[in-house]
């Protein structure tokens, strides 16, 4: 499926643009990755004793895979609400620059802020990547409708995956249940690794994995924050040092 040319009458209605956005979910491997990831999140929610409605609400209203697994994992392992909220808040800061960089692609001189509300809500790493890929092929005045369609499609795929994963975890043998749970760390590890653009990103990822078991030994209840701050700051140091030498 190719998108119609910019001057095609196909773009004359917002509804059509929404539909083109919806259909574009079939044009990206990331849809499959999201499906696997949210299958895992559904299973993780089940095995951490959350309800299905809880899992679906988290997908619908949080709409950020990393935040969702941080939330489920920390709450499920006995962290307090405050500790989880801090970890999630820090993980979500990256949404700020994403929203800041993606909304100008859709804005026209007459666009009102409230028209961008859903686009801002739908912004997460997958949508952000796809916007940069698809939007140059969409006429500017139809981009908001297109993004709403694309986001609606991706959310629907993830809600479906959550439900399937939840029931699979409830009904499968232990080994297959374990296989579904393993999808989450694998898909996040590799999709994050794929997004690494500079050495500092690689250092943050690798050190973050390696420092966690050390931080967990301190048993402070803030393990994730301690290892994250330490590894992230060291990674930033690497970035700074390379900048200074360059």
């Amino acid at each position, binding site marked *: 499926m190719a998108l119609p040319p910019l001057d095609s009458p196909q773009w004359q209605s917002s509804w059509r643009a929404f539909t083109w956005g919806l259909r574009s979910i079939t044009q990206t491997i990331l849809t499959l990755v999201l499906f696997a990831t949210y299958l895992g999140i559904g299973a993780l929610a089940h095995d951490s004793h959350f309800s299905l409605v809880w899992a679906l609400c988290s997908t619908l209203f949080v709409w*950020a895979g990393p935040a969702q*697994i941080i939330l489920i994992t920390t709450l499920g392992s006995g962290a307090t609400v405050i500790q989880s909220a801090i*970890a999630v808040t820090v993980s979500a800061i990256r949404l700020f620059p994403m929203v800041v960089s993606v909304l100008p692609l859709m804005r026209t001189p007459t666009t009102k802020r409230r028209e961008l509300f859903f686009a801002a809500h739908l912004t997460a790493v997958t949508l952000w990547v796809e916007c940069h890929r698809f939007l140059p092929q969409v006429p500017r005045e139809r981009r908001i409708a297109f993004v709403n369609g694309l986001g609606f499609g991706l959310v629907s795929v993830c809600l479906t995956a959550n439900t399937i994963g939840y029931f699979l975890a409830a009904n499968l043998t232990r080994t297959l249940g374990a296989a579904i749970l393993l999808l989450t760390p694998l898909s996040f590890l590799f999709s994050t690794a794929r997004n690494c653009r500079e050495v500092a990103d690689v250092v943050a990822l690798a050190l973050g994995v390696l420092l966690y078991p050390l931080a967990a030994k301190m048993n402070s209840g803030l393990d994730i924050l301690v290892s994250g701050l330490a590894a992230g700051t060291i990674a930033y140091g690497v970035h700074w040092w390379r900048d200074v030498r360059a």
Partner: protein
Amino acid sequence: MSAAQLVGDWQALVVLFVAGVIPNQIWRMLGLWFGGGIDEGSELLVWVRAVATAILAGVIAQIVVEPPGALASVPDGLRYGAVGAGLVVFLLTRRSIFAGVVAGEAFMLAGQWWLG
């Protein structure tokens, strides 16, 4: 499964809102309101991105090191081996997420089968 089980207790939904929804939406809405004047490449944002990546990395490690539910039935070595095997294939296939995930899963399933 009953309707009550599907919904669960309302306190958990409140916790979801406080610890999950607000911490995310705050950043998106700030981006929507104050979007104009922020330099995406600023040093503060570079540090923030590094810390956010490392926190996510820590959670990935936590799931593998202290696994929830059914994953706990897989021996330690096999879980670490599966991630390692997936990583090797991911790197060999020029960073294919799909190939890495499939390889990691296959390693774990084969190991479980072999161990009986």
